């Protein structure tokens, strides 16, 4: 078996005096889409931030692509091929849509075809190309955050709740986008509350609760098992769309 692209083992994270993550272990296999699910406050965002080095793991290991990134600095982690869409989107409100994307393309001008593809997914961005991003609507900001993460090909995408605030039609195109990205060989770790989107996309699923991993396995198993959904997520898939 080949080594997973990303591997967390026994990761603990403290924020100030609070102990948030209590030994998180899971793997993200290369080329596939892994969903990270869990209730509010379970520690999903903290996990992603710890991977990005925005919070330091107090113990445990994080391996990416064969090397240990636990103690690396955030820019180095990003340069090793990880893109991140934070929960709060991290839009630069002062900068225009274009400037936001320019910054995301670290290695020079964005490939013309890729840009057209992205703007095809999110036409609103094209429309407001020279508008300060702070003036975008909530959903448009979310689109921009995603667009930024995929402006250049990356090895791994960490995405925190991309569908919140998106109209159903946009959720659909987002799902299409992730499918396309996966097809082009990118690996995705996705945090999602929208179980419909999650079940439509995920190959693997990891469920967190209270800073620990409480389940991990194939998505299809979870989709099939209603009682497990009830136990892990507090609601069954049917009740929601």
């Amino acid at each position: 078996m080949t080594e997973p692209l990303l591997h967390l083992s026994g990761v603990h994270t403290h924020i100030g005096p609070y102990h948030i993550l209590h030994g998180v272990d899971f793997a993200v296999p290369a080329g596939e889409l892994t969903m990270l699910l869990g209730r509010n406050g379970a520690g999903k965002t903290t996990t992603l931030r710890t991977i990005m080095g925005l919070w330091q793991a107090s113990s445990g290991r994080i391996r990416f692509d064969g090397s240990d990134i636990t103690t690396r600095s955030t820019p180095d982690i990003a340069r090793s091929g990880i893109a991140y869409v934070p929960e709060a989107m991290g839009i630069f409100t002062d900068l225009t849509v274009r400037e936001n994307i320019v910054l995301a393309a670290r290695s020079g001008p964005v490939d013309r075809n890729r840009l057209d593809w992205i703007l095809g997914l999110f036409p609103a961005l094209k429309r407001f190309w020279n508008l300060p991003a702070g003036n975008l609507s909530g959903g448009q900001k979310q689109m921009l955050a995603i667009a930024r993460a995929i402006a250049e090909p990356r090895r791994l995408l960490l995405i925190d709740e991309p569908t919140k605030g998106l109209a159903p039609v946009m959720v659909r195109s987002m799902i299409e986008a992730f499918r396309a990205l996966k097809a082009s060989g990118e690996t995705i770790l996705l945090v999602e509350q929208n179980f419909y989107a999650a079940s439509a996309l995920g190959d693997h699923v990891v469920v967190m609760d209270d800073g620990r991993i409480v389940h991990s396995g194939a998505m299809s198993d979870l989709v099939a098992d209603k009682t497990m959904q009830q136990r892990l997520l507090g609601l069954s898939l049917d009740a929601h769309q």
Partner: protein
Amino acid sequence: MSSSSALPLAFDETRRRGGILTSLLSSDLPRSRALSVILFSIFALLAATPFLFSGSQPVGTAAKICVFIVLVASYDLLLGYSGIVSFAHTMFFGIGGYGIAIALERVSPTWGSVAIGSAAALGLSAVLAIAIGLLSLRVRAIFFSMITLAVATAAAVLASQLSEITGGEDGLSFQLPPALRPAFRVFSEPVFGTMINGRLLAYYLVFAVSLVVFLALLRIVNSPFGRVLQAIRENEFRAEALGYRVVAYRTAASVISALAATIAGALMALWLRYNGPDTTLSFSIMIDILLMVVIGGMGTMYGAVIGAALFVLAQSYLQVLMGAGSAALAGIPLLPNLIHPDRWLLWLGALFIISVYAFPGGIVGRLRQGKP
């Protein structure tokens, strides 16, 4: 909360109404044993300075501490509680000083003039604070700061230009009402080895007024009004949406703060029997105030007490201390030069830097840390 929080906020609904001390302190107790001890010592020392120490320097220093406690606390109301960075605070301090100085020098050295001078100064301060507030509290914070800086500069220029009234660069020396003059004796014999004279009365006047104003400010920041100010500082947009008229609240805060600063200025002038641009209007005093607020702990009120006491002491005795140190180290190369009294500014500058590092949440924040 997390240790990074630089602004320890005192929300603790378990605090009930309690004894007289609690109500005097507006139920905003020090909440740390060390802090309580320090505050009480400062209070006790200030209350007894004339009887504890001989000579004019300790009393002078104590009076200056009292005045600066009021001045710094009033600035903390603006900065720490309302998040307004104003550089015009010394202007109000100056107005208070000039109110007293002009009334006593140009009218007559009587209590009537003290009353007229203070009333006129308070009135002028209130009007100016409202004008500045309404005109400019709507603009962005940084611009507000720059506008106040400009206004303060203009005030200093005005004080210098109107030399007929203000004494210009030279300032005004004046006489106090007879009861406050050194020659005035309450008893012919010393009490506890200290002569009860007009100077002493003047000190206790400064002390008492400072105490009252400080307690009033403490009450205000712990009132529902004070809570709104903190909310506005945190998120002005949200406060407005909750139904609080941000500009009105901010203007009110500026006015209260300006009035307190004016009182401080009046006290300063009364104590010094002198007022001039360097004493109350200069930008370096503004910087001192900032430092005292930050060292003491922003948004805590008690920080003002500690910051003012510490800084005024340092300012008064740093040179003396350095003189002693440099004499003691005579013979060693270089070192005595560095702590030569004439280099005291160097160490003051270093003190600025070090204290901001050592007490990121102010001394009060540091003391309260272990004890939630």
